[in-house]
């Protein structure tokens, strides 16, 4: 590789990373500023009075000790369900030419196209009076049900991603599995899924991140549960109302950091995905 391209690449990468990071870094610095510093336009990058107070306050207000584990396990659960359901559906849509395939897949795209706001009211009514009188609002059930039926946040995208991945796999793989005596599900589970490993990691990471930060569905269906997305709307500034801005910033940083950590770990599996891909040939 030529030196020229290396230099250009470095410039592009540094420029892009800087553009992405700059606003986020400002937020992180704001989290450590005292309130006087926050209002002082002259203090920008290095706080004059460094303080942990904001973070302490926000951790208490978010009930982080309680809401963090709940949000974590809930997001993992939802992401796993979504990977499984969307993977199954993607395989079904991608590899089998059953009747109505095109029409049903059109509905999947429609699902991605229709913003949640459009179907919010009918969905709310459905879960408020679930099969007669069961009230599922303010429980963890509605989003689990939506994930189980492939209707969660932008699940249409995941189904589409899986469909394209499975469609792009060589036919010989499947044939070999069938000759070896696998039934349809075994073929999927033992041969196709391991080959879609990097797509699984991708969908899991996106699903996890979006469930973690989702406010649309969580605030519609389970406003009073202890998820971080709900807790952030209760953050308030106490005596000085304007402090809420700084607390909001801090809360945003505290919400995003765990997701980035999960991605940092998940990112390693990307590399493993390459090693696995070598097996397929």
């Amino acid at each position, binding site marked *: 590789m030529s030196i020229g391209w290396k230099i250009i690449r470095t410039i592009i990468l540094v420029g892009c990373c800087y553009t992405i990071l700059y606003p986020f870094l400002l937020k992180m610095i704001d989290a450590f500023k005292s309130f006087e510093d926050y209002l002082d336009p002259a203090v920008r990058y290095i706080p004059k009075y460094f303080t942990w107070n904001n973070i302490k306050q926000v951790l208490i207000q978010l009930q982080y000790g309680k809401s963090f584990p709940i949000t974590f396990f809930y997001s993992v659960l939802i992401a796993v369900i979504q990977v499984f359901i969307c993977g199954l559906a993607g395989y079904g*849509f991608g590899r089998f030419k059953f009747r109505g395939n095109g029409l049903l897949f059109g509905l999947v795209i429609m699902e991605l196209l229709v913003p949640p706001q459009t179907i919010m009211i009918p969905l709310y009514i459905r879960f408020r009076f679930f099969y007669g009188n069961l009230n599922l609002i303010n429980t963890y059930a509605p989003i689990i049900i939506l994930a189980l*039926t492939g209707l969660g946040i932008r699940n249409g995208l995941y189904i589409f991603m899986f469909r394209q991945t499975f469609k792009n796999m060589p036919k010989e793989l499947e044939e070999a599995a069938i000759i070896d005596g696998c039934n349809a599900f075994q073929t999927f589970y033992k041969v196709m899924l391991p080959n879609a490993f990097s797509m699984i990691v991708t969908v899991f990471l996106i699903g996890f991140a979006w469930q973690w930060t989702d406010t649309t569905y969580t605030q519609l269906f389970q406003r009073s549960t202890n998820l971080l997305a709900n807790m952030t709307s209760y953050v308030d500034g106490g005596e000085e109302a304007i402090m809420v801005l700084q607390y909001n910033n801090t809360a945003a940083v505290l919400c995003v950091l765990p997701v980035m950590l999960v991605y940092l770990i998940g990112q390693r599996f990307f590399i493993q995905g390459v090693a696995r891909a070598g097996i397929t*040939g």
Partner: protein
Amino acid sequence: MVKQNKKEKSNPKRGMILSEKKNMAGYFFAMPVIIGLVFIFLPALVQSLMYAFCDVKIDFGNIQSKWIGIRNFYDAFLTDSDFIVLFGNAIQGMFFDSAVIILFSFFMSNVLNQKFAGRGICRVIFFLPVVLSMGIVADMEDANAMFNAMSAMEESASTSAFDQLGMSAIFSITRLMDLMGLPMTMTNIIGSVLSNMYGILNASGVQILIFLSALQSISPSVFEAAKMEGATKWEEFWKITFPMLTPSLLVCVVYTVISTFTNPTYGVMDYVESQAFSSGKLGYASAVSWIYFVTVIVVLGIAAGIISKRVTYLD
């Protein structure tokens, strides 16, 4: 599909042929999603479509709807001057933004797939927009926007010293291109892309990730074989990498068109929401959103039609 139907007609007593039987398994795999689509999604969608033809009012918690035919659609195009302007801008923006985002994310994912020091960190940073662009953080950004607008007026001199530096850099680049005698339209396009860089990076997080995972799943042995045959890097890219990425390209185009059209900067979605919840015109709001759906479906249909012909599946 068509062929199978013909066969069925010619021999009505015969059961399903083997490939048809095998294809029935598709229902089994897609079953949870089919149930969701047919029993939860479709009724909600139909209800929203019904509202588009009705005058909907919420009286004391009861939803009352009166059938008024296509009046809502008629109003949207002929009476409501705000909507037409917003809609036109959104369509224009959609084409330009989608093209820029797709090209950019395609390029970036290829860069991020190369080996270099700090690749892991770079990938994490490029994932940040996926988290930041929706949900909690986006909501808070909205809440902060008002305060920021206020403070920007107060301290315009000190705050934007940095931004001014960026703007003047962009200005001097476009100026330089002018001097080089490049056509005006090209200069304008590059200028607007550069000044929108943050928006573009924010919007292309998911696409980069999709391309990246597609790149990861290309088996290294294919490249080895190509190298043995004496292929250059250029040939490797166009004959292996690009065809292997086309299935993901289709996903990205569809996703990008949809997400740029719903981009809050064009205000269509905000307008729908304000009509529904502030002005209480639920029926009109759903008519407007249906106009938007149909438009996007048409655009997607054309785009997918063009791309699908060039998509190569290994299958």
